[in-house]
């Protein structure tokens, strides 16, 4: 099955390929060095900015002042005694719920797109995809009015709805791609055995689709976690506000506490990184692999 094209599968062949190269060419030291130097440069460029901010978050004024270099927890203490923990909890609740909801809804929709033939299907599928292409900034005012009329501003429900909506187009698109790689014979066999359509989706397809679901959900989570525009307009009470808003509020008009900004940046970034670490092998196995048969 193409699904299982894990990073490991290609390895043995490539390694032997490498060994052959090693023995074949004497005096080839230059090339490995070049590769390692390139790798090092890339890793440095990717990671250094985050290290810079991590280190700064443990210094007064974020270490931006040359003379303030002593280690301190003060930034984190300021941050959390100012109620930043609340933002973290809000973000977690809203993003986890929206991710779960959008993935659920998207799996269902993707299944239909991938397995059924019906009138207007191309148009509907195209419209769903078009959701990704619309400039969100013009949605803010109309949506604000809609949510207020429904009583959903300043509520988890309203925000979960928004984030579910922004994640669906991409999720449907990705999952449809993955589903195309799941053989239909699997469904058909189960149907012949007397399973209902719903059972086929939940008992047969869902487990097989898991890698795709994980990738998709991770992406959806990232999208929600970093979203700023809607959260700014729809959440005005600290009890429900999310991390990006909390972070942004640290910039006062007349001053900004740069140490706290750095600490907040670290707090905003770490959870996603922790989430990715155990999944990284799976993630790289195909954020778009499913999209390309």
């Amino acid at each position, binding site marked *: 099955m193409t699904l299982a094209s894990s*990073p490991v*599968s*290609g*390895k043995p*062949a*490539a390694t032997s*390929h*490498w060994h052959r*190269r090693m023995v074949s060419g004497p005096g080839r030291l230059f090339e*490995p060095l070049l*590769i*390692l130097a*390139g*790798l090092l440069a*890339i*890793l440095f460029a*990717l*990671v250094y*900015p*985050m290290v*810079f901010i991590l280190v700064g978050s443990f210094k007064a004024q974020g270490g*931006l002042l040359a003379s303030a270099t002593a280690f301190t927890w003060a930034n984190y203490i300021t941050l959390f005694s100012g109620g930043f923990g609340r933002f973290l909890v809000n973000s977690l609740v809203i993003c986890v719920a929206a991710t779960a909801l959008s993935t659920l*809804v998207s799996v*269902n*929709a993707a299944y*239909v*797109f991938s*397995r*059924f*033939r019906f009138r207007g*299907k*191309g148009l509907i*599928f*195209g*419209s*769903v995809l*078009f*959701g990704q*292409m*619309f*400039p969100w*900034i*013009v*949605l803010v005012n*109309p949506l604000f009015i809609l949510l207020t009329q429904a009583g959903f501003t300043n509520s988890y429900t309203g925000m979960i*709805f928004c984030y579910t*909506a922004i994640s669906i187009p991409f999720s449907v698109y990705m999952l*449809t791609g993955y589903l195309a790689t799941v053989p239909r014979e699997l469904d058909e066999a189960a149907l012949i055995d007397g399973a209902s359509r719903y059972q086929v*989706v939940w008992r047969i397809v869902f487990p097989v689709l898991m890698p795709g679901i994980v990738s998709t959900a991770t992406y959806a989570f*990232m999208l929600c976690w*970093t979203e700023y*525009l809607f959260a700014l307009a729809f959440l005005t009470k600290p009890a429900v506000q999310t991390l990006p808003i909390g972070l942004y509020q640290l910039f006062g008009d007349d001053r900004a506490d740069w140490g706290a900004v750095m600490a907040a*940046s670290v707090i905003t*970034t770490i959870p996603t990184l922790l989430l*990715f670490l155990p999944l*990284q092998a799976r*993630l*790289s196995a195909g954020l778009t*692999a499913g999209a*390309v048969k």
Partner: protein
Amino acid sequence: MRGDRLFITVMLGPALIILALFYLWPMVENLRVSFTDLTLLRLRVGGQWIGLANYEEFLTSPETGRLMMNTFIWLTAISVAVRLLLGLAIALIVNTPLVRHLKLATIARIAILVPWATPPVVAIIIWRWLLEAPDGALNTVLVTLGIIDTPIAFLSDLRTVWPSVIAIVVWNTVPLIALSLLASLQAVPADLYEAAELDGASRSAKFWHITLPFLKPTMVVLGLTSVFWTFNNFVYVWLATGAGPGTFTNVLATEIYIRSFVDFRLGYGAAIGIVMALIMAVFGYFYFRMIGRRQIEEVL
């Protein structure tokens, strides 16, 4: 067949209802507003119908040419191209036998995740510090190494401002590309290379005739997806340069923001939004023809 119809409705219904509420209704509302002179101050009472005046003003404005150029060429085309090339380079390096042999690939993959896990707002804050003149990290390094004599104000010098913005966008978004290409690279069947080696193919020949064709579909998907994520993006330009110096880095999304929330002209902002959506619709049509449809065509 009846059962199927019910099944389709139940499965598809929730997604479509959510999307209709979130996109369709505001979009229709937006279309209506774009034909009025609605302002934020008159949001309560509503605007007057002024027909196509907003569109006419936008399309005949002397600024529009630069906005299009900035949005299409700088923000979108160049940044997506750089992203793809750099992503490819990273994937190729991490995938070299040497790196895998030394068990560095996992470390590399984790490092690649770092920029991706960084929210754009945070990424921009960090990069503004790094690019600062005279004593931001980059200037310090360049001056120390003797590459430049005097520090460069990266985000305000006309010669460097676009490359700097693109650097920030690329840093933040290249991981997705690199990881996806890495996955594709690892899926290239090893026997293809072995067969080519038996035929005495050179390394560059193998790259051009085996690796690249194999990666092409993934690159096309990634490229096109990146295009519309970037085209509509407001945060990078707005927070990095505020569309300045002057109006030098103004793009369509920031123009909408300025018109709607600085000038309060919601009607005019809505009209620009509709123009953007139309451009994306044309683009989306080809996107769908090339990729989207392939996913569902088996049963079309």
